[in-house]
């Protein structure tokens, strides 16, 4: 007989003896549907995937033509380090990424603020933004090559345009969502127009602008690789393309792993920026 059944029976028996209604605790029903932190699990899952992959390659379950093992990919990265080519590829890629993203973001914030503040600018530029935003910017690369040359200019321009539009949209919608009561408060205390913009509107739009950064940064990486695959001698994208053409799967995976690390570092940096600038949020 189970413990529960036994307990019930004793309770029932006791109740019968005292001629009273049975007394029992109210069952708990509020559990579940809530996430708890499991710090070590994420690392373990990651290591497990790598380990299965490595074992699969070594035992021949995974065909070596289809996929290189993690250790081979790591070897390819070490080759890159030893030959010094890592810095050449990575340096050029980071230069294009940083230059394109920074320029695109700065221009995007500038135009976004103008659209957010001046209805004339909004009326003039909104249709243009709506028309140009959905174009995959990589389709414009040939045009950029004609305009800015086959060198760095065309690649930076592609990333610039790709990050510009999402930043514009994030910025002006951030400004649109600033609490009108705060602006009214600023006016009621006689604050100068520029003070209201600088001290109320821009900080109020900052959360939206920073989450726009996340989107524009991932767009920038996609465009970087695409642009480098189309017309570059060096750079992570070019390295991956060459590796693919030579069927060097280990190098290909090494290149992809480097991209993943770039993406993770950028996400971490933006997370730090959010912590620093938005610590006032709950």
């Amino acid at each position: 007989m189970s413990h529960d059944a036994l307990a019930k029976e004793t309770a029932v028996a006791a109740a019968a003896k005292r001629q009273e209604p049975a007394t029992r605790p109210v069952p708990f029903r509020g559990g579940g549907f809530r996430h708890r932190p499991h710090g070590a699990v994420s690392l373990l899952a990651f290591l497990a995937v790598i380990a299965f992959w490595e074992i699969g390659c070594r035992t021949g379950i995974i065909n070596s033509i289809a996929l290189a093992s993690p250790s081979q990919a790591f070897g390819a990265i070490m080759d890159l380090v030893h030959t010094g080519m890592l810095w050449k590829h990575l340096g050029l890629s980071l230069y294009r990424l940083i230059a394109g993203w920074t320029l695109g973001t700065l221009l995007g914030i500038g135009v976004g603020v103008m659209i957010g503040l001046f209805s004339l600018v909004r009326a003039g530029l909104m249709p243009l933004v709506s028309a140009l935003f959905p174009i995959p910017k990589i389709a414009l690369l040939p045009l950029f090559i004609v305009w800015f040359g086959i060198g760095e200019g065309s690649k930076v321009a592609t990333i610039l345009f790709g990050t510009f539009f999402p930043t514009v949209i994030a910025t002006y919608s951030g400004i649109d969502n600033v609490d009108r009561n705060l602006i009214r408060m600023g006016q009621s205390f006689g604050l100068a127009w520029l003070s209201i913009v600088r001290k109320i509107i821009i900080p109020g739009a900052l959360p939206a602008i920073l989450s726009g950064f996340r989107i524009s940064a991932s767009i920038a990486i996609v465009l970087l690789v695409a642009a480098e695959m189309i017309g570059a001698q060096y750079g992570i994208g070019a390295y991956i393309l060459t590796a693919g053409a030579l069927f060097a799967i280990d190098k290909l995976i090494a290149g992809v792993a480097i991209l993943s690390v770039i993406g993770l570092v950028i996400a971490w940096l933006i997370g730090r920026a959010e912590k620093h600038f938005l610590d006032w949020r709950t």
Partner: protein
Amino acid sequence: MELIVDNIGHDYAETEVLRDISFTVKRGEIVSIIGPSGCGKSTLLRFIGGLERPDSGRVLAVGDPPAGSLNPLTYIFQDFALLPWRTVEGNVSLVLEDHGIGASEARAIIADVLRRTKLADFGKALPRQLSGGMKQRVAIARALSVRPAVMLMDEPLSALDGQTRELLMDDLIELWMRERFSACYVTHNLAEAVRLGHKVIVLSRRPGRIRETVEIDIPLNERAERIVELDRVQHQIWSIVREEARQADMELTRVA
């Protein structure tokens, strides 16, 4: 400085919200404005402070604001309107920054108003760390820092719970005893209106018109004790408001 509200009327699109509103806010006087929801009392307050323009009528200021007043007509908002990214000190400092006040003088003003609102220990706290009552005290401190001639209070206690409301009402009375500020106090809460107002202006339902003006002679600091007399005034006003409030309520349900 006195304020004269002269024959204000206003329409929003097709609906007339306010009609023929005229009254005076004398120096050191708190005028409570009370009325059913949707009678345009908050709109009226925005006209008085120059945040919106009425279709007809005008608001006149008589005489000069007191010397050193940085912002003669100063609002206190229902939702506090604090910048969440600025500390308590920073929120007060915000309204001083455009007036060319030296850093040390600004610090002195901030310390002074925070002390007067019992916030001296919370200068470095962010708004999210504060209770509702404290947030509104920060807003009051901010308003005091610009030395207003008239405070325009738009349901300042409506977002607070009952106990905090009582405490803050006591604070406001204490403050008035010391500073003798003038104020327009818009509320839908009868108890607040009669506790704080030297006169209570009762607005009708839409279009808002002055139904009646009730003068209350009991000094502000004695009102907590002379609760029976105050209760009589409150009942008198309630008998005026009740029918208006009921009809305003029916009106809304019929529209919806």
